[in-house]
């Protein structure tokens, strides 16, 4: 891959995404909704001062469950808009090497989500500090730091999963339906299945149930899958989506 080609592609994708109507609003929505829901759940889960059985860090970060939906919108629209307007044909004429286009889109999108995610996650933790009585989760604590960094990476991986899905199915509404289905249906089905072995298996493969284990800071032995391994499961889902997207981009006409 020529470095120059990649640099042009990155510049082009950055310009497209930066100037697309709605990108700024969606980034603001990711932050606002994540923090708002984190604060609401934390306020609802607030326990009497002193004895607190809740995982304070995880509760403070629960807004990620809502924020990820907006991240998915951002990612799907990053490519979906091109398909619905026919822009994709111009993109591929200007940049015939599809792997570069896909890689550039993934990099630019990851960068944006990394920034939005970091702000959301840190602001959520701050909100948690204001709402919950002490002792507060501190970033100096290794597991809290892991939960924080992991939550940002979780959002980036959700963006990549959504991007891959959107390219693979080419229709934005269907793509978001598939992504949200993958995320939200696993936990609901897990609750309906009472068999403990099945529950555990489903928790280990569901992108959201496995990925969000990275937020756990207490009761680590009770987790269905280790925190980083859980994030690895989500990374596998995202990689699979991007891989099939790359393959289909090569095989299909735009």
């Amino acid at each position, binding site marked *: 891959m020529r470095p120059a080609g990649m640099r042009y592609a990155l510049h082009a994708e950055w310009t497209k995404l930066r100037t697309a109507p*709605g990108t700024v609003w969606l980034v603001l929505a990711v932050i606002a909704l994540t923090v708002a829901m984190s604060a609401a*759940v934390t306020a*609802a*889960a607030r326990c009497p001062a002193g004895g607190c*059985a*809740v*995982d304070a860090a*995880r*509760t403070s970060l*629960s807004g990620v*469950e*809502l924020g990820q*939906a*907006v991240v*998915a*919108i951002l990612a*799907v*629209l990053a490519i*979906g808009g091109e398909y*619905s307007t026919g822009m994709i044909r111009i993109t591929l004429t200007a940049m015939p090497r599809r792997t570069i286009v896909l890689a550039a889109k993934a990099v630019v999108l990851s960068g944006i989500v990394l920034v939005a995610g970091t702000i959301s996650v840190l602001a959520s933790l701050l909100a948690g500090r204001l709402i919950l009585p002490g002792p507060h989760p501190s970033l100096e604590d290794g597991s809290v730091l892991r939960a924080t960094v992991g939550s940002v990476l979780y959002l980036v991986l959700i963006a990549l999963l959504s991007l891959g899905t959107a390219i693979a199915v080419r*229709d*934005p*509404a*269907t*793509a*978001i*339906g598939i992504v*949200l*289905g993958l995320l*939200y*249906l696993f*936990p*609901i*089905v897990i*609750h*309906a*299945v*009472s*068999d403990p072995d*099945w529950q555990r298996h489903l928790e280990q493969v569901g992108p959201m149930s496995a990925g*969000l284990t990275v937020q756990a800071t207490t*009761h680590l032995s009770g987790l269905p899958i280790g925190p980083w391994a859980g994030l690895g499961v989500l990374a596998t889902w995202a990689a699979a989506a991007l891989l099939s997207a790359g393959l289909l981009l090569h095989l299909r006409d735009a």
Partner: protein
Amino acid sequence: MTAGTSTVEREDTGTGRDGFARLVRAEWTKFHTVRGWVIGMVAAAGVIMGLGLSPGRQGSCGQNGPDSVCALPVGPGGQEVTDNFTFVRRPLAGDGGITVRVTSLTGLLPTSGEGTRPGLVPWAKAGIIIKDGTRRGSAYAAIMVTGAHGVRMQDDYTHDTAGPPGGVSVASPRWLRLTRSGDDVSGYASSDGTHWARVGTARLAGLPATVQAGPFATSPQYTQVINQPLSTGEVSGPSQATAALDHVTLQGAWPAATWTGDETGAFSNASPLQRGGFQQTAGGFTVTGSGDIAPAVPGAAGLGTTITQTLVGTFAGLIAMVVVATMFITAEYRRGLVRTTLTASPRRGRILAAKAVVIAAVTFVTGLAGAAVVVVFGPGVLRANGVYVHATTTFTEVRLVVGTAALLAVAAVLALALGMVVRRGVIAVTAAVVVIVLPYLLAITGLPTGAARWLLRITPASAFAVQQSTPQYSQVDNVYTPVNGYFPLAPWAGFAVLCAWAALALGLAVLLFRRRDA
């Protein structure tokens, strides 16, 4: 393009009902000629059936020979009941009565380990009972003191009348009296044995001439909810209650000379807490029992599951339908078809109404087919896997099927309206899924019970209440949470919340459709 409202023209052919029918037909043609949408609907029905008919649960009922068959006794009202208690009885021939004084009610609760600790569950019961024989599920009327609900008069499992509040002790005992006169059994309570107040009268139709009567004690399953973020668990186990009764006086004909002690519905492999018994003391008895005389409930405090379990695929079907419903309107914008549509029929409110009618009808029929198959065949699959499924009336089953179909139809209309409002399929699909599915998900996973119940009262997810299949009984302590199939609103009230949201969104959509250029 000129502004919409200023250029509204009358249609030159067909007005009123006829014109609307033509619009509906046009929209139906648009729908069924798009292969992807039809496939989406078939997929929605398929996933509802697939998830409903895949077992996913394993039970032990009937899996290890005839002894392992799970069966619950059936009460006089036809409902499944729990009927396990220690019964100290003598036959009572004809009319008569029994009076006792209860001086203490104590109990034992399970701990998270193997041990026990002293304590009473709120619905621990001890008192006197008149029952149509010793068959489990037979008719009865009883007056009792309880762990935390004062004096109660109960009959035929589902009826419960409150008497004087407060617990019992040697210092403040409670006198109880039960009298039979024909089919009527009346319960009385007193704090001194002289001044009596009637608590209630039960009519037990067809009570035989000779009944069994005497003191009883029982104590239901103990449940404690453990709230942790993103996982709500329960600790549950049997509990035990012991009551001391004296001053036993009998009226009427009591042919047998001695008292017989029974553990009605005793467990074959009982844990120490589940063993009961009685001792005769000077002028009275000490009765120990475990179990309950109450309607049987699914979930933590009971056995098995309900038919609601089979409808889990509704969520997956809902997402597919939301996608199709949103595209039904946003595709017009993407392809510019909306301009043709508006030229052919400039009255915008009616176009949106026609679209809503078509999408609602299609999703209703699809949902009806999916839910009907699951409700009819799903319980059989679960039972074949050894899971006990509570019986439901045909009326409830019809409500479940029609309610699920209606839920999907109104959700699709909500998605359609959101699609019109934001005109971007991706955002509309996400908004619809986030307001309908996410509150339910939060309610069953992360949130404390109070917040969860609040969410399921005001968000569109309240509509899943139409899928509740067993009633909530105030006289049975159970974990009445959404994850166990219990919703804070009545079935159709919950559905009405979704309807209100859909109406609001549709109103906004019509308003914006009229004011905006296409």
